[in-house]
């Protein structure tokens, strides 16, 4: 086994004990990138070749020089007997929505294509302090606006390591594809409507959306400010817990980062699920989506394979002593996407007004008359279709004459969505859940181009993840099996405010229960036949 295929926990232990060096770990990751990633995303990609279609294309910017310097510092400290941070020498990537001083921070958009961040985002700064080694900035949907990573201005877009003809999901598709393919043990992603959990499900890795406010948003290029959550992408639950230990906690630079104490998320990992109450809700076993042909909302069952994976997970957890509580009503789940269509758009319209070609980023090279024309040309050339669409929707639904019927109404429905979870978790209520167990996505990864362009259908890929963002609660997505097409099937655990520890503990118990399952032995297609 290559060093890049070890878990972060194993690798950090070997480096700490000086059995391998941080530079050796870095070399292993760099070799894997050369083997499977192909060319990095670019604004002038030209034609996508058949060779491109076999590669992962996780990266926009590789930061080998920075990584080498960071790895050498770790090795030097170890040689001097200094105890390094908990992730010392562990290679990771950051979604290109995090500002990192000295790197391009593009958000996958032409409008930030020349933007070098003057400062570093808090979650990245904490990874640096913990000794982790940054391999680069990874691709995403433009400004995180999508569920497939296809909308990036930087092409080729990332592909799913399990089958490169399918999407890795999004918007943290570069993060999850990189982790699945061995290009860094960890990645920093962000989740606004499911953007960590949905691609983690598609790529067969562990993705954790922490409680809103658990991890600082300082230095994150904002999408939906009341919804955005930075969080870990990892290959297993322990690694996700280790990474959350590092990035969680209050931050003077983000007043929404809470002061709730951060526990050691690894401490109770092996505690098992005996006596825990885990709910199943029928409202997470059907999808409702807008049918263009009929103009109506259609209701359909989810993929039978995903349903079976969730049921089998419930069986395994029950065998380990958890109490499975069935028929938990979550009646407002079906309004999650329409509510998101309103709230996230209002917030993003506000956040994207700052990109105007004056202080940083792209400015139109055309000869122009005045400031107004410069704004228009710059934004017309710099933004792709998705940000433009979202700005316009946000302005429409928050306009004075429409706000009551759309924005205000959506904020009230958000209260009802939150209420569903409060009833399910109420310690004095009927269900008294520690967590809900649901599918992470309605289907496994879809083919490139199959959904892209239909923005309504694309958004419905987030139907089971988005309600956690409205409610602010934490969610963990992980692999629960493999489809007959050999694509990962994602299951999701949704928890109480600030109780990430319970989700990690249940997730770890599920890993233990399935450690001998045949699907656990399977590897992504792009890794087949590597030397």
């Amino acid at each position, binding site marked *: 086994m290559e060093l890049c295929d070890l878990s972060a926990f194993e690798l950090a232990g070997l480096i700490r004990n000086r059995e391998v060096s941080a530079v050796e770990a870095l070399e292993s990751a760099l070799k894997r990138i050369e083997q499977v990633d192909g060319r990095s995303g670019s604004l002038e990609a030209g034609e996508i070749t058949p060779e491109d279609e076999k590669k992962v294309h996780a990266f926009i910017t590789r930061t080998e020089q920075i990584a080498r310097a960071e790895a050498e510092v770790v090795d030097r400290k170890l040689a001097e007997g200094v105890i390094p941070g908990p992730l010392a020498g562990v290679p990771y990537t950051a979604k290109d929505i995090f500002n990192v001083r000295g790197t391009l921070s593009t958000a996958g958009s032409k409008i930030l294509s020349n933007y070098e961040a003057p400062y570093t985002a808090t979650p990245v700064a904490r990874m640096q302090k913990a000794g982790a080694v940054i391999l680069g900035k990874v691709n995403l949907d433009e400004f995180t606006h999508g569920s497939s990573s296809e909308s990036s201005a930087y092409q080729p877009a990332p592909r799913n390591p399990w089958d490169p003809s399918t999407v890795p999901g999004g918007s943290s598709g570069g993060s999850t594809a990189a982790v699945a393919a061995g290009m860094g043990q960890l990645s920093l992603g962000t989740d606004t409507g499911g953007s960590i959990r949905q691609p983690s499900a598609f790529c067969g890795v562990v993705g954790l959306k922490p409680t809103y*406010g658990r991890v600082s948003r300082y230095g994150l290029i904002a999408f939906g400010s009341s919804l955005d959550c930075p969080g870990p992408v990892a290959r297993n639950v322990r690694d996700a817990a280790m990474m959350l230990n590092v990035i969680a906690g209050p931050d003077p630079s983000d007043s929404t980062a809470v002061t709730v104490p951060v526990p050691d998320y690894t401490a109770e990992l092996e505690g098992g699920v005996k006596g825990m109450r885990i709910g199943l809700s029928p409202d997470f076993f059907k999808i409702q989506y807008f049918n263009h042909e009929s103009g109506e909302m259609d209701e359909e069952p989810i993929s039978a394979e995903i349903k079976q994976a969730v049921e089998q997970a419930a069986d395994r957890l029950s065998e380990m002593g958890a109490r499975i509580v069935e028929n938990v009503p979550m009646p407002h789940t079906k309004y999650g996407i329409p509510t998101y269509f309103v709230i996230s758009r209002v917030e993003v319209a506000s956040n994207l007004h700052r990109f105007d070609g004056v202080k940083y980023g792209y400015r139109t090279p055309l000869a122009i008359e005045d400031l107004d024309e410069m704004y228009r040309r710059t934004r017309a050339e710099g933004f792709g279709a998705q940000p433009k669409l979202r700005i316009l929707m946000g302005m429409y639904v928050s306009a004075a004459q429409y706000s009551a019927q759309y924005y205000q109404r959506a*904020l*009230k429905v958000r*209260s009802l969505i939150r209420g569903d979870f409060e009833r399910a978790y109420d310690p004095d209520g009927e269900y008294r859940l520690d967590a809900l167990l649901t599918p992470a996505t309605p289907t496994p990864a879809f083919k490139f181009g199959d959904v892209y362009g239909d923005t*309504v259908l694309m958004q419905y890929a987030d139907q089971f993840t988005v309600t956690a963002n409205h409610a602010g609660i934490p969610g963990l997505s992980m692999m629960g099996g493999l489809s007959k097409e050999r694509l990962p099937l994602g299951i999701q655990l949704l928890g109480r405010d600030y109780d990430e520890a319970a989700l990690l503990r249940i997730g770890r118990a599920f890993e233990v229960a399935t450690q001998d399952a045949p699907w656990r032995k399977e590897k992504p297609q792009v890794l087949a036949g590597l030397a």
Partner: protein
Amino acid sequence: MTDEITRELFDKLVDLAALQLEEEEAEYIRRQLNSQLTAIHELAAVPLDEDTPLAAHGVPYTLNTSAPARQDEHNPFPRPEIILSGAPEEEDRYFVTPEIPHEDLD
């Protein structure tokens, strides 16, 4: 809630958003907006009480969970030249823009 974003309204929104769209892009975006609006109209079916609270965020913020307000202190960025180096156009430590539309007062 059966509004549709007409071409006229759409053009107004584009103007307010400081955007310019090619014809083909405008048609695609307007079509998508109206599709999304049809999905948003589902919210009309949700029974709401007068006193259902507006949720500006999901998790409640209390005194026990919120960071104290920072002191109102001037804390300048140590090296403003780094910020200025990212400007599309800069002169004498000022951001330079094209002519700002204005009317001369008598």
